[in-house]
């Protein structure tokens, strides 16, 4: 029973974003990741942020659940902002106290960096919440397949990613079960100092690791017994189809990003 849901996990509802071809979404997200480092103005960030907010609304994923994604990165963002603000110079001095100085340039850089991280995580979250893991893996395989000419194992990489994605919820469930079983034996993961807590996770981590290896063995055997021989000549049950609306979506994404960079 999946009682808890992980951040960024596929959220199966019907929405225009869910309908799009995985490749279009992957390309758009990749483009955004690159473009974010070129955006360098308040107006530019506003354009990109507005686009992402609109997309979240269009995805029909509850915004509350979606933006919880950002909580774990909040600490990283806060730290980078502090470092940028205090340790980069440039522009006029806004504040001075002992060795601490805040410059307008540093402040600007700090805020922009925070926005970059937040927007990037949001976009990646948008991709994974609206794309089924299988479609995502198929999309990646397809996009990487030209590299096969250079002997890059596109199918194998995609298969590994697909399996890894597939087993995240399984391992989570397993971890939950083992945690409960140990809790029933009096294990307490929420008390004591850091060292004590780390030690307290061992009764969960050890069986979880052993179970993961066992599962890996079983999965390999199951795949072989069903005739898996790698990607050559393999067909798919669900074919990816790149339709007109995918092209339009990509074009719009490109326009927004170029707009964000130029502004």
């Amino acid at each position, binding site marked *: *029973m*999946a*009682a*808890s*849901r992980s951040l960024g996990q596929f*959220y*199966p*509802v019907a929405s225009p974003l869910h309908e799009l071809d995985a490749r279009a979404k992957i390309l758009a997200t990749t483009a955004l990741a690159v473009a974010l480092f070129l955006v360098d103005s308040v107006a530019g960030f506003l354009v990109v942020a507005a686009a992402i907010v609109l997309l979240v609304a269009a995805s029909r994923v509850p915004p509350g*659940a979606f933006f919880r994604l950002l909580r774990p990165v909040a600490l990283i963002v806060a730290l980078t902002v502090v470092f940028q603000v205090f340790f980069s110079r440039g522009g006029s001095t806004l504040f001075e106290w002992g060795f601490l100085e805040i410059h307008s340039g540093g402040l600007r850089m700090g805020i922009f960096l925070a926005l970059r991280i937040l927007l990037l995580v949001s976009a990646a979250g948008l991709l994974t919440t609206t794309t089924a893991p299988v479609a995502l893996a198929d999309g990646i395989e397809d996009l990487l397949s030209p590299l096969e000419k250079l002997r890059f194992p596109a199918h194998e990489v995609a298969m590994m990613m697909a399996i890894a994605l597939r087993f995240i919820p399984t391992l989570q469930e*397993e971890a939950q*079960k*083992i945690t*409960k*079983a*140990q*809790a*029933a*034996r*009096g*294990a*307490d993961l929420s008390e004591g100092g850091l060292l004590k807590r780390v030690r307290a996770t*061992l*009764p*969960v981590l*050890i*069986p979880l690791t*052993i*179970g993961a290896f066992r599962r890996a063995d079983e999965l390999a055997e199951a795949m072989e017994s069903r005739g898996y021989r790698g990607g050559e000549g393999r067909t798919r049950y669900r074919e990816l189809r790149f339709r007109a609306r995918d092209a339009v979506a990509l074009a719009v994404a490109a326009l927004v990003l170029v707009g964000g960079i130029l502004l």
Partner: protein
Amino acid sequence: MRIELENVRHVYAPGTPFEIEALRGVSLAVEPEEVLGIVGGTGSGKSTLVQHLNLLLAPTSGRVLVDGVDARTLAKNELRRRVGLVFQFPEAALFAPTVEEDVAFAPRQQGLGEDEVQERVRETLGLLGAGHLAERSPFALSGGEKRRVAVAGVLAMAPEVLVLDEPTAGLDPAAREDLLGVVRSLREGGTSVVMVSHDLDEVAEVADRVCVLEAGVVRATGTPEEVFYARPAEAPTTVRVVSLLRGSYPGLGRPVRLGETLAALKGLLEV
């Protein structure tokens, strides 16, 4: 100790597309010194139900009473010691380098002295017929041996109520018989046992009372005779055989256990 569930509802993942109402208002009591069998198909809510007995899961609504006191007001650790819960496939949670240490985990968490811990380990492994495995690695044991060690790991807390979720799933017939023997001897020693199973034949052998769960609702509770003879189509083999013969031989009574049933049938042959 007596545990009572009062109109317990449990909803998984409320407010998401994954929402499932696993228990829809269950009222049920576990009486002192009884073996309560909980039966029902897959997805009927059996496993969800038993996790409420020691509050590993909290009811979405409704209450769990322990000797008349709301269980939420009790210390969780103490409650979990008094109500020992053995999950389905409990061997998946074995972790220590030796069997001895794995079984010692729970009593150590309880803060018992080392002498007492060792005593408990010896005692419970002995009760489960696993004393000879003490020095071995739990990962190198057979399936049946692992199961015994995992059950010992919970029994070592000396619980007043032992809850077993599908304890015999995947065991061979001999190992299953051994485990049912353990259930019987625990009951004789004054420990209540709650046994979840979908094997009606084994429930018939050990249960004092039976509770039938279906789609998160209690369909029936009572003695095995009452429950099984009310619905002979979903009853142990013994009950099905006797039900078919009872039309012609009303003197058969309502035997449930294999021994009783054989005695009743023998009576029939000797007339």
